[in-house]
């Protein structure tokens, strides 16, 4: 096995600054309620990081099983922050799976992604404002382009994750076609049920995630199905579309607000250390919710011809554009897909070990 002596320093660039204090006692693995015999973490991965086993770290699925309840960090005798190390590994792995290499650059260079996002937002807002044609129709086309772009980006990630975690370590293309495994994966994907596997369920965090996720999925639905054309017609305050908008906007605002305030107050282990990408994520999320709500409020209150509405709607679309182009495919957002995939790949590995995997 090839050893990379710089591996631990490389991982530290993604967070986990205290991990060198680890003396390998195993308290973290033993205290972790999600750590299992066949997927035990964090100690093994900390050790692998320290001794430079790069392939082992790159092929690890364990970081995606961790929901960062923070029990390991709270009880670590060395205050080495093993929970934060798992977080850093997730960032490291996202950078690893990213074909473009942009996530790596964004993660390592502090606020670069945020500055770029601000710049792009200004540029798109200016671009949309100076568009003289029918902006409502243009917005419809832009929104239709979003899912295509995201699917391509996500596809790249999934293929690369598969390459690192299955193809390379197992030496070939393996899969499991058992319905139970596929069902298990889908269940994890929709419910993220291991969230509640942590000893003391952090209900605030879970509710914040639920609000943001549901609000966000609905927002996607609204924009991708182009349910909303606020520049063309006036909506009734409590019509079906309006209700969807009110809920998703408020859910994002409240959920995002909880997330941000926890990060400011550092109230839980999982919110003690914030990477710029975390801030960019919650702040942009917050802005999407706020601009969506404001747009719809103006439409309902003053009709589609309102001059302020025209501006805010352009801002709303500009924020969404930046979100889709710069934030969704790079750094934090995609973590929701890797968790269920890791559950599936774990099944594939077990099948492969037993020799029952489907392979090419």
């Amino acid at each position, binding site marked *: 096995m090839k050893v990379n002596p710089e591996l631990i320093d490389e991982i530290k660039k993604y967070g986990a600054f205290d991990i060198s204090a680890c*003396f*390998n*006692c*195993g*308290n*973290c*693995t*033993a*205290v*972790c309620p999600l*750590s*299992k*015999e*066949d997927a*035990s973490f964090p*100690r*093994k991965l900390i050790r692998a990081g320290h001794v430079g086993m790069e392939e082992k770290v790159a092929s690890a699925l364990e970081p995606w099983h961790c929901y960062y309840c923070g029990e390991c960090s*709270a*009880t*670590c*005798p*060395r*205050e080495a922050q093993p929970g934060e190390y798992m977080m850093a590994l997730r960032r490291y792995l996202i950078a690893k799976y990213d074909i473009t290499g942009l996530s790596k650059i964004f993660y390592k260079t502090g606020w670069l992604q945020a500055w770029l996002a601000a710049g792009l937002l200004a540029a798109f807002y200016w671009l949309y404002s100076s568009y003289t044609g029918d902006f409502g129709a243009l917005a419809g086309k832009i929104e239709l382009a979003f899912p295509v772009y995201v699917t391509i980006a996500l596809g790249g990630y999934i293929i690369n994750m598969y390459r690192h975690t299955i193809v390379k370590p197992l030496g070939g293309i393996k899969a499991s076609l058992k319905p139970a495994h596929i069902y298990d994966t889908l269940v994890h994907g929709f419910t993220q049920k291991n969230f509640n596997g942590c000893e003391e369920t952090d209900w605030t965090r879970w509710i914040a995630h639920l609000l943001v996720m549901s609000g966000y999925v609905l927002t996607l639905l609204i924009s991708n199905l182009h349910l909303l054309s606020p520049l063309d017609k006036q909506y009734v305050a409590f019509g079906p579309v309006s209700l969807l908008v009110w809920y998703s906007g408020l859910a994002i605002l409240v959920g995002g607000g909880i997330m941000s305030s926890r990060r400011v107050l550092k109230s839980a282990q999982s919110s003690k250390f914030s990477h710029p990408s975390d801030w960019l994520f919650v702040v942009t999320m917050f802005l999407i919710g706020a601009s969506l709500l404001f747009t719809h409020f103006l439409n309902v209150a003053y009709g589609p011809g309102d001059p302020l509405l025209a501006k805010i709607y352009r801002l709303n679309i500009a924020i969404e554009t930046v979100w889709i182009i710069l934030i969704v495919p790079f750094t934090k957002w995609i973590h929701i897909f890797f968790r269920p995939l890791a559950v599936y790949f774990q099944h594939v590995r077990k099948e492969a070990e037993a020799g029952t995997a489907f392979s090419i």
Partner: protein
Amino acid sequence: MSLEKIEVDALVVGSGIAGLQSALDLADQGYSVAIVERNPSIGGKMISLSKVFPTLDCASCITTPRMASVSHHPRITTLTYSTVDAIRREGKTFTAAITRKPRYIDEKECISCKRCEEVCPVFLPDEYEQGMGAKKTISIPFTNAIPQFPVMHPEHCIRCGACARACPKDCIDFLQEPAPVEIKAKAVILATGYETTPMTAKKQYGLGALPNVISPMAAERLLAPHGPYGRVLRPSDGMTPGSIAYVQCAGSRDKSIGIPYCSRVCCMYAIKQAILLSGSLPIADITIYYMDIRAFGKGYEQFYNNARAMGINFVKAKVARITEDENHNPVVRIEKQEGTSGPEEIKHELVILSQGLVPACDGSKFGLGAANNEFGFVKLSDETVSSAVTDGAGVFVAGTAKGPRDIPDSVVDAGSAAIEAASYIRRL
């Protein structure tokens, strides 16, 4: 009440093995010493231990002669059941304000016949036996206590008067009050010792609520020949435990409970107790969960190797949680690091938490210039030069008051404190 005044060369605070040794070393050189102890007997923690590592000598066989020497020494005044309320520096001398707590007996008349104890009808949990045995409301603290005076606990006394009627010397005094004592001394030796980290220090270890998770001091009493049960039984149901585990670093080397330092004695006392346990329970399985074994003193490594050879199971793992099953059997959760590694839960019948050492007394509260280190122990002014000199002139420190250490080290330190104090008094 008249103020009792005592004038001596040196005041020793605390009468554990370090305090006893420095008092003896000073007195044998011709200095007069007053030794103040807050408990009813001198002897400190050591007198309650079973045996000592690595020689397995009987602890009371080493401590009792020193206790006797101190209490009979013509140049040593012993004040037990007395607290040091304040020490003032006045020019080149120190004036200590002491309160003698009332035992509710006339110490001048008492002949230690134990009649009062025999007739007293009220039983209390015995803290000397770590709550495992019972004692009477008026009783001599333990068999080999010095002085052999009974102490009455008025908060539990039912005022039946049985003791007063039984006493042949008529020395029960229900109206006794605390008595102030003033000690003038030229030097002060702080030998205030340690406490073990509380059972409630770590949430994951059950906060002291698991009956079969006990402290090492309780284990010492179980192993002592004159202990509460006379043999090793577990507290919840009196069963003879067949599987016993030690959880190392349960109260030290753990930043999450604020005690990052190594307590230096836990590895060795756990190994010692494990060896003694395999003597008293030959068929019991004994496991020691450790992060790393620190057997650094003379003969310690050999002692550790002997324990391994005896079949004591050493498992490298930090215990993360202790829970219990329906029969109060403690279940420890660890990560096995050998073979197929992963988290694992293992059931035992008795678990001993190897607690660490924390300071028993804040030495800086006397305001004598002797500062504390970051962990609350008395700080040495320069530990490369002297192991007893503090930042306060004329104030010296002995034993675990300056940090965790074992008995041999405490005894050596106590001698060094006595020498430093003697040389200071001479130079005055």
